[in-house]
Each structure stands twice: as structure tokens, then as C-alpha cells.
């Protein structure tokens, strides 16, 4: 089964609104969590990452919330802009193998 799951394949938000992207995971050993952004025909780029010892991290318009007991983390984008339109990939990893497991992605569309 999928170890990292993004249940929403797509999300549409109006410009200026808050985009909330969700990710669920299965492995209790995961202790690194990350969000990547990917434009069509481009490579993923890291947006923000957290370790399991924090439950929230902010960076400008981006906030990651981590709920370890619920095996869930989310990315909130405030003041969403049309240029935020992209595929967002969540990823999680843990242990000594340095592997990240990626979700299948959520296509965020921000409409003017």
C-alpha cells in the first residue's frame, strides 16, 4: 500500500485565499517531512521541511503542521497567488537509510 498518501489529486483556490494541502503517512519511523513544488516539465524543488520534534514551522506564506499521533501533515499557503499553481508533492522519511517516500501529488490551481 501507499506509505505516503495525498488523498486529493487536485485543489482549486481563489487568489488571496488559503491553500491547504494534506498528506497522510503510515510508517511510525518517519521523522522527516517535506513539501516539494513541481511545475509541468520541471523538476521538484524543496519548499519546506520539518523534523518530528516540532509540530509547526513557518516560512513566509508557508506553514507546515505536523500531527504525529494522527500520522498527518499539511501545508498551508496564505495569500495564494496564481503563480502558486503547480503540483505539490509531500514526502516523508526516517531511519538511517536516507530514503524519502513521495506522495503522488496534488495539483493546486489558484484562480485570479
Amino acid at each position, binding site marked *: 500500500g501507499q506509505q505516503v498518501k495525498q488523498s486529493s489529486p487536485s485543489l482549486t483556490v481563489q487568489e488571496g485565499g488559503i491553500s491547504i494541502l494534506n498528506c497522510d503517512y503510515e510508517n511510525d519511523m518517519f521523522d*522527516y*517531512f*517535506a513539501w516539494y513544488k513541481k511545475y509541468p516539465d*520541471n*523538476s*521538484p*524543488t*524543496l519548499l519546506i*521541511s520539518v*523534523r518530528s520534534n516540532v509540530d509547526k514551522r513557518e516560512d513566509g506564506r508557508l506553514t507546515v503542521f505536523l500531527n504525529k499521533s494522527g500520522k498527518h501533515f499539511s501545508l498551508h499557503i496564505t495569500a495564494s497567488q496564481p503563480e502558486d499553481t503547480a503540483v505539490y*508533492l509531500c*514526502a516523508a*522519511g526516517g531511519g538511517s*537509510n*536516507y*530514503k*524519502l*517516500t*513521495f*506522495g*503522488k*501529488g496534488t495539483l493546486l490551481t489558484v484562480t485570479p
Partner: protein
Amino acid sequence: DMKVTQMPRYLIKRMGENVLLECGQDMSHETMYWYRQDPGLGLQLIYISYDVDSNSEGDIPKGYRVSRKKREHFSLILDSAKTNQTSVYFCASSSGTGNYAEQFFGPGTRLTVL
């Protein structure tokens, strides 16, 4: 300038031909990765390399092998390519011992096997 490069960017091969995909990085990262991305499947890990000649299978290694003879170079080899290996291949690197969730990706190679 932190960079991961991939060559070639586009490649068309016939079934049964050998394929060599090259990846380079200038960050002295210990850990490097090969992924493939297919519609509806997301990024899947093929192989991971922890340093020179220290490679480990990922989630879908069948049909692939890798070579890492220098820290800055990581190659993906398809011996006798198959049509189901048509995909976009991404190489990535990370500092490994640091925050390995921070992976730097190359631009990708679009491989078509006819």
C-alpha cells in the same frame, strides 16, 4: 552555484538497446538518488547511493543498475531497455548526514523506448 545536472535531457531508444543516463552534482553530497516519474504514480525510487561504490536498491530496482565511481557522478544503466521503462528519470542529491529530506533534483531525462 548548487547544481545537479543530467545528460541527456531527451533520449529515444529501441527495445533491447542499452541506455546510460548520467547525473552530476557540484555540492560534494554523499547521497544520490535515481527516481522515475510516471503519470498517476508519482516519484518512485529506483536506487540510492550513499557514496562511491556504496549503492542500495530502492523500491523499483528491477531492470536497472547503477554505478558511482566518483562522489560527484551517479549513472543509471538500463541493460536491454523495455518499452515499460519509458518515463521521466530524475536524479537527486542530498547531504545525507544532514537533512536528507532536502534533496536537490536535476532537470530530468525524458526516455522513450520504442
